[in-house]
């Protein structure tokens, strides 16, 4: 079953078109929503949880239609908003418990799960402190705890690492990876930080000016990139390109001893070293192509 299915979805605020004719079906365990500021990422998320009304088309979240089945969507989704959001003068445990109860958990179950969720996100020792006294990183974790307390099937995270320092960011990324790998829930992560999405997502949807400019499976891209190699030779390297072609690779010479190659299925890199050794060609560098997502993103932005 697809996690997210957009079927000609459009959203307007007054005369301004924010999202236009979005069509895609995504079914990965974790989906990244990327785009520059103002691309419509947050509006898409807000439309999926029913805060914005679609002006055209529709969308389905875990098979539920956003026009007809909003209560079911809200019951199965956990939402962590982008901005600071909490209830004043409440301890973290009271806050998370209340959010669990509002999602339909009985009082006792909500209290038990509030403790568990706070321990899970790493706020166990601070759970009886007032939310107003929390640091920004702790507030982000408390928001995550309230989003998972009721055991959602889909967790929507809007800029989860916003404003976090490097250790706190690492902790948040690790938590997201754990949740993804547990297989208990699907994730939809909205971010403008490529690194966050690359570390946590399997599929990615890139928006620009309210339209989809790219949608791809990062795992497939990563597998494909294992076949792209950049090589740099020093000194005499005559015949290298021909030899690589003879070994079954596609090879292009970029100049100054640099080559780019596409390796055939099952190709062993050892073959390249063996050839270089036999011809006494000195290899300075051999890299797989990296920064997959950045390349995809930059290409998408050129559209």
């Amino acid at each position, binding site marked *: 079953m697809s996690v997210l299915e957009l079927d000609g979805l459009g959203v307007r605020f007054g005369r301004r078109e924010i999202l236009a004719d979005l069509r895609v079906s995504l079914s990965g365990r974790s989906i990244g929503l990327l785009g520059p500021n103002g691309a419509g990422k947050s509006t898409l998320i807000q439309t999926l949880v029913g805060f914005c009304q679609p002006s055209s088309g529709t969308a389905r979240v875990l098979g539920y239609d956003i026009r007809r089945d909003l209560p079911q969507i809200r019951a199965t989704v956990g939402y962590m908003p982008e901005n600071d959001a909490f209830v004043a003068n409440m301890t973290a445990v009271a806050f998370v418990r209340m959010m669990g109860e509002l999602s339909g958990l009985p009082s006792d*179950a909500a209290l038990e799960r509030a403790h568990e969720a706070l321990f899970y996100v790493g706020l166990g020792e601070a759970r009886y402190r007032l939310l107003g006294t929390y640091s920004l990183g702790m507030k982000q974790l408390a928001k995550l705890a309230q989003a998972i307390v009721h055991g959602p099937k889909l967790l929507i995270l809007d800029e989860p690492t916003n404003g976090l320092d490097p250790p706190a960011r690492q902790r948040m990324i690790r938590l997201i990876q754990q949740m993804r790998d547990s297989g*208990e829930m699907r994730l939809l992560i909205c971010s403008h930080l490529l690194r966050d999405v690359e570390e946590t997502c399997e599929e990615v949807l890139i928006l620009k000016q309210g339209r989809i400019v790219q949608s791809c499976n990062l795992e497939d891209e990563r597998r494909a990139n294992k076949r792209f190699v950049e090589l740099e030779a020093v000194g005499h390297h005559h015949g290298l390109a021909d030899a690589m072609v003879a070994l079954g690779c596609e090879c292009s010479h970029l100049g100054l001893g640099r080559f780019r190659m596409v390796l055939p299925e099952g190709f062993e890199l050892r073959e390249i070293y063996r050839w270089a050794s036999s011809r006494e060609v000195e290899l300075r560098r051999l890299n797989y192509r990296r920064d997959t997502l950045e390349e995809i993103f930059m290409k998408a932005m050129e559209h």
Partner: protein
Amino acid sequence: MAVYKQTYKPYDGSQTPRWSRFLILGRSSYGRLMQSRFLVLYLMACFFFPVLCAVFVYASHNLSILESLNIPASRIFQINNQFFEFYCGFQGGMACLLTAFIGPGLVAPDLANRALPLYFSRPFGRAEYVAGKMSLLLYLLSLITWIPGLFVFGVQAELAGWHWTRDNVWIAGSLLAGLIIWDLFLALMALALSASVKWSLAAGALILGVLFAGGGLAAAVNSIVRTNYGSLLDLRQVMSVIWSQMFRDEQATNVPVGQAWIALAAAAAICIWLLARRVKAFEVVK
């Protein structure tokens, strides 16, 4: 000490019925409110007048003791519609102060801390949110207005006997309806004004201003424009006119009853409009 598992697990237990979830907000706020000593003291003070009224009713049925002390009790102690109308006016005023104390903390902090998306991303709607917040205020207002009012009426009915009760049961109806209307209006207004400003102190000042400065504003409008319509801005006076009608008190007022009802309905409609505008998961910034 409980030991909690530090792993994530889905929830597959039972769910509470959706209609009952609005009460969670009231319950959660009630616990925090009751931590305020001032509020607890004020609530206790609110019961002073009903207790005094009950003593008054008791004394009115034991005039011989007072007359033996040369007090002209039979002229002073008259338990009738005007007695209960006065009760409504006094406790209605106490309810205003309670509203000004509790009202600002209802919606303004949620707006200031952007908590509304957290509520509305759950199976919990705007109407349920408003009902939940109102339920707390309605509970406390009821506790100091019509509940002790009916108790005082009950004391009078017990002491005056069946005939008095049969002839005056409409007073209990008027007391109940008049105070419930006032409580509902106060709760709605407190929520609307609390939703209009993000700062609790400003919301409190606004509620006090609307309830207690309305009289001054009404007098100013009346004297400048030379009309009586300015009195419609004084919501406490508007309500007292409605109470006069409900308690069949034929004192002359400068506001016709029909206009008072229209003014109250218009004020309630403005409050609902304000709530509909402000209580949203997000705002579109133009």
